[in-house]
């Protein structure tokens, strides 16, 4: 079970990243849970300076940008 977290306060970029992450996980037929982290203090506990950010199994994989579905598929396949 992959644990995917989307860090962001809910702006369009954050929503797009969540859509892309969901699309990538579905395309890979992964078992996953996706959680949106919107609390600014919890976001900062990851050490990120910029959002949106993508976290997989507790590791920040991207920050300050919206990776494509294809890019996220590569990240999830690691």
């Amino acid at each position, binding site marked *: 079970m992959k644990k995917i977290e989307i860090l962001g306060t809910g702006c369009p970029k954050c929503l797009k990243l969540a859509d892309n992450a969901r699309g990538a996980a579905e395309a890979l037929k992964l078992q996953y849970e996706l959680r949106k982290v919107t609390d600014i203090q919890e976001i900062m506990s990851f050490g990120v300076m910029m959002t949106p950010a993508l976290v997989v199994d507790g590791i*920040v994989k991207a920050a300050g940008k919206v990776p494509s579905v294809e890019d996220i598929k590569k990240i999830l396949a690691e």
Partner: protein
Amino acid sequence: MQQEDSCLCRPAPTLIFACSGAADTGEIADRAARRLHAERAGVMYCLAGIGGRVSGIVKSTEAAARVLAIDGCQLDCARRTLELAGMTGFGHLRVTDLGLIKGKTDITPERIQQVVDSARAVLNDEQKEGPR
């Protein structure tokens, strides 16, 4: 450093790392970086997080518009730490290149300001060269 309590979906910032070393020149590097942060020339960020490969800090640094490393001496610990984490193309300033001598430099407001001014010049040069 404390962050503003607002959305973090903002343009990529300039990040400033100091060696913050034990020597007098390391302290000057640290205090110059803190002043640059206070004056909003950039955001001081945690070099130890780069060394410790804290994923959020590494990924944020990769996404920064510009990065400046300030080292206290020729050992260049900040520059080397960033390079070992795969960072390239960042600005670099060495305090001892400004005529300050490691182990023989009193920490004064004037010397900190000297480093701040030099750091601003490095950042301005980087800006002219365009984004990383």
